[in-house]
């Protein structure tokens, strides 16, 4: 096994989800070789932050793992709890049956073993603390096979103790929990990119763009250029109507729906994007707001749609969330779709529930009436393909 500096920390961060590759690791080596990161642990941590993180959230993750990784030396000088901290730790080691490691600690053994060689930056700091010495001595008493494990468990326990002890400070809580909005199956960015595919470019408006070809043609014909030929700019006239199911079984998907609405309205570069809400199935009225206050007659909504430029995307679980078959739902939806298709050619359905949950519910039947896709990156681009007029294999065009 080669001994690379900080490799264990690097691996640990990769497991934690930071997008790190060999390139990032090489950056660290280059920086270390040039003498960066040698001014104590804070300096090393700062170096890792600069090289390996790309957002505040990632900084939080890195700090957490970095502190856990270098925890033992921190207990002694920093918190002044050197006397108390080792107590429970040692007890933990002594009472543990030999070889029966705790689940989470066991897999990192191999990496932890290499750690002393790795801590290039903090070696100086670590040596003088009597505590580490004691630990090592303690470890040395154990049979060889168990040494790494004991060290690991000590470290883990100490790290835990440090974190608990540090709770009183104002940094601790912010590092403990991290709120991430990106657990959804499709990111904001991916949504925007998908919307971009929905295009119907038409030259419209005042002539402002130079038409090079026509200008050259006129130049060639007249032998002299008297006037530039201008033409209108291309603009995206693709209109979109989003129909969003709210409340009831859709409550868990409100966040996802909101993201769809936001990205379509802003950043999607659509000619026009309107959103209407409904509950369970779209009926004679659609609502302009998610709280069902501004009702509008379906006929009026449909009258405003452009038959070829507008497409309709429905976001609803179609009954798949509860998994029941509801005859009324299917019939109402069928009637609605029939009415919709008299005005608009391209209609698609995004279902937040995975296809595995569709069978035996209304969703399976409705999926036969309209191209239905799962809400994910793939599903969304397929749905937009349908909105652009692509024919779904094995299905009649709408």
């Amino acid at each position, binding site marked *: 096994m080669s001994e690379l500096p900080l490799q264990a920390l690097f691996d640990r961060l990769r497991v934690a989800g930071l*997008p790190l*590759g060999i*390139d*990032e690791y090489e*950056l660290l080596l*280059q*920086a270390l070789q*040039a003498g*960066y990161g040698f001014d104590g642990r804070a*300096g090393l941590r*700062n*170096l890792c*932050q*600069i*090289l390996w*993180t*790309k*957002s*505040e959230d990632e*900084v939080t993750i890195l700090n957490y793992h970095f502190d856990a990784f270098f925890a033992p030396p921190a207990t002694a000088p920093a918190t002044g709890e050197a006397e108390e901290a080792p107590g429970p730790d040692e007890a933990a080691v002594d009472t543990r049956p030999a070889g029966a490691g705790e689940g989470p600690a066991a897999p990192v053994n191999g990496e932890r073993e290499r750690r002393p060689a790795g801590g290039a930056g903090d070696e100086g700091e670590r040596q003088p603390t009597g505590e580490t010495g004691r630990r090592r001595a303690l470890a040395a008493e154990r049979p060889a096979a168990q040494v790494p494990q004991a060290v690991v468990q000590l470290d883990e326990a100490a790290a835990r103790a440090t974190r608990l002890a540090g709770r009183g400070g104002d940094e601790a809580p*912010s590092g403990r929990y991290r709120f991430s909005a990106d657990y959804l199956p499709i*990111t*904001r*960015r991916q949504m*925007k*990119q998908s919307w971009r595919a929905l295009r119907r470019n038409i030259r419209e408006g005042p002539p402002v763009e*130079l038409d*090079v070809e026509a200008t050259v043609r006129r130049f060639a014909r007249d032998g*002299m*250029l008297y006037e*530039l030929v201008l033409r209108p700019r291309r603009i995206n006239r693709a209109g979109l109507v989003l129909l969003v199911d709210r409340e009831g079984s859709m409550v868990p998907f409100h966040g996802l729906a909101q993201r769809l609405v936001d990205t379509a309205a802003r*950043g999607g570069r659509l000619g026009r994007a309107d959103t209407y809400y409904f509950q369970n199935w779209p009926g004679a009225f659609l609502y302009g707001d998610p709280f069902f206050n501004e009702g509008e007659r379906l006929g009026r909504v449909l009258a405003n749609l452009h038959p070829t430029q507008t497409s309709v995307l429905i976001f609803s679980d179609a009954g798949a969330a509860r998994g029941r078959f509801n005859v009324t739902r299917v019939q109402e939806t069928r009637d609605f779709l029939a009415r919709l298709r008299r005005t608009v050619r391209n209609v698609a359905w995004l279902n937040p529930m995975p296809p595995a949950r569709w069978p035996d519910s209304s969703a399976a039947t409705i999926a036969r009436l309209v191209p239905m896709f799962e809400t994910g990156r793939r599903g969304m681009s397929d749905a937009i393909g349908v909105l652009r007029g692509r024919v779904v294999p094995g299905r009649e065009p709408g």
Partner: protein
Amino acid sequence: MAKPLIYTGADQYQPPEEQWEPLRIFPYMPAGDLRDAVNLAIFLERPLLIKGEPGSGKTRLAEAVAYEFAQKYGRVGPQPDDDPEDLRLGWPLYFWSVKSTSQAQDGLYLYDAVGRLRDVQMKIKQPISHYIHYGALGKAFRRTDVRPIVLIDEIDKADIDFPNDLLIEIEDRHFTVTEMDHEEIEATQKPIIFITSNDEKALPDAFLRRCLFFYISFPEPEQLQEIINRRFPQRNKTLVNRAITQFLTLRDEMVEEKGRAGKKVSTSELIDWVKALHRNLAVDGNGPAGWEELSREKRMALFEQAEPDEKLMLDQVLALLDGELPFLSVLLKDWDDYEAYLRRLEVKANQRE
């Protein structure tokens, strides 16, 4: 390559006061870790992506580095493509302020096709390079004497594909000018690239991978004090300290109310505020006539619109710093913030009673 460039932020390289206004350069106090980040970016030849609250000095950093390099390594003269503005600080700093309509091509070069067409008509003969106008990256890549600094400001304002379009140019540091018989422009001096972002749009992963990242956090109170003292060396210390205390209280309240993500008062707003407070501070005299008889509202109004001959004395200004702050419009830019502030004032007043 010549000797390595190192940014220190040290005192001897800070601009003296007489240069502040004419050069639009002010003292910049980087935190130690920010300094390291800059030096790493220079050494590893990677762009440095800087995020932070608005007003935390993201844009100012590039200027501070350029100024220090000019002081330390000697001033550099312009090259044929340069505008005077690029050499304002004595070291090439190419500023690219990204707009929502910006395209990656704008940063490399623009070809003036219409200008050429016009000249051909008029039988004016010019070499084709006459119609090529280089952008910030283009100028930086063509520079041959020193490593120039490029600032791509607020990259998140542009379209979501903008950063991806720049990837190759930033990584390989070369591009082709199609109109000039596909001439290759390759950087001989590796530019030092700073990129700022306000997090309005997420940046693509492929782009992030190539950058180093630094988040400028709000300065510690001591650091804030240092920044203000540097910026206002001749100002009244008592007033400055009181202003900082009030400012920090206001900020803490806002953090508590809005959480980490909301817009809070920033360093740059504090600087403006301290400036405003001092504008109407008299060095000697008694202050406006009949001050004692005025109500608080009248005093406040008088202070905020003081004529040159009715400036306030230090005590009078300090008294106004209790309760509703003067020049609030400098600090609070949002009606909701203002309302929340008044509500807190009321609560505090009630508690006192």
